[in-house]
């Protein structure tokens, strides 16, 4: 299985429980092919809401002087994407969110009704598994929103499978890593 780990800068450090390195190691142990990309919101330009990716260069962002289209390329060709982020008010951290805002070329502008509500149509037949992993000291309300957000993201991107894992402490991070291991061990052996 080909896995892309997208992480915020903090998850490569002690305060982010070195989660990115640990996740990469554990996924390699179970036989997955893993690539990690550390996202930096100071290097990725923010989406400017121009919709050029839908009507000028369909499927590709019109901002081409950073690596976002390349990351999208790796993203869409992966079987699963693991998003490691500090939970920020219940959502993703700015490093992750800057990239996610720039990932709308991967869906279509057209509307459709899906599970009772309006959403965009899919551009690709398959969207990689979506595994959101949120870490950091968070309130109950923030944790709940992070889980709900993962459900909503799944309605908009429609991955075949999606998971949401959260860890408030280094100890809980170990549980999250074991859960990641379980998810992918089952898949690799299936």
């Amino acid at each position, binding site marked *: 299985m080909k896995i892309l780990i997208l992480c915020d800068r903090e998850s490569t450090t002690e305060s982010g429980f070195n989660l990115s390195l640990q996740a990469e190691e554990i996924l390699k142990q179970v036989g997955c092919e893993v690539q990690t990309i550390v996202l930096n919101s100071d290097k990725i330009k*923010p989406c400017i*809401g121009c919709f050029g990716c839908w009507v000028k260069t*369909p499927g590709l962002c019109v901002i081409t002087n950073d690596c976002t289209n390349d990351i999208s390329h790796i993203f869409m060709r992966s079987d699963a994407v693991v998003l490691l982020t500090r939970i920020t008010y*219940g*959502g993703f951290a700015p490093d992750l969110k800057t990239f996610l805002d720039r990932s709308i070329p991967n869906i279509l502008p057209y509307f459709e009704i899906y599970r009772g*509500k309006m959403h965009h149509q899919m*551009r*690709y037949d398959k969207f990689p598994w979506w595994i959101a992993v949120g870490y950091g000291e968070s309130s109950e309300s923030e944790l709940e929103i992070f889980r*709900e*957000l993962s459900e909503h993201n799944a309605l908009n991107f429609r991955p075949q499978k999606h998971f949401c894992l959260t860890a408030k402490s280094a100890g809980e991070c170990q549980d999250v890593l074991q859960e990641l291991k379980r998810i992918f061990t089952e898949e690799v052996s299936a």
Partner: protein
Amino acid sequence: MKRIIAVNGSPKSAESTSGALIKTLEEYIGTTIDSFRAVELVRREDAHKIIADILKADILLIVFPLYIDSLPAPLLKLLTQIEQTAKACGSSLPTVYSICNCGFYEAEHNSLALKITRNFAKRIGANYRYGLGIGCGGALAQMKKGPVDNVYAALRDMGNTIKAENSKESEDVFVTPKMPRFLYRIGGNIGWRQIAKKNGMLKQMKATPHSL
């Protein structure tokens, strides 16, 4: 008179729906709202000074479009910067209100984004009043009355609440313009096709450049 500051979270440089909503609210309240664009403010070297000034206001309005079920990244980044400054701020903080509009029909899509701004207010220790979620954001630029009367009524309500002294936290409010969903969906889809056609891209609209 209360001092009101708005943070416009739209990354668009001109004619954003968020900017228009701030202007309308300004008319309803009848006082000047100092407005800052998040995308510009986060890049400024003197951002911390402006943020310190924002925190001295009576009311902070956070107005933005829905991006991937939550806040546009530059706005999110700005909120984290405000949080840092607020930690060192001894004085009382502004009461926070937020308005989120989305291109989808149903206003409820904005629910999580509004909750995120509520959590931001809690993190900095500010009062949060309520949020307003607006559906069919794409229609607001083209219509000023009729189906969107309820949107403007909800904005007027927010204006009145801001003018009043009541700072009690309450539930978020959601308002979807009164138009049939199928019409909004068809209108939207035709609109996308027309723009793509103008760009000579109609046939390529469903391109899949990252396919295996």
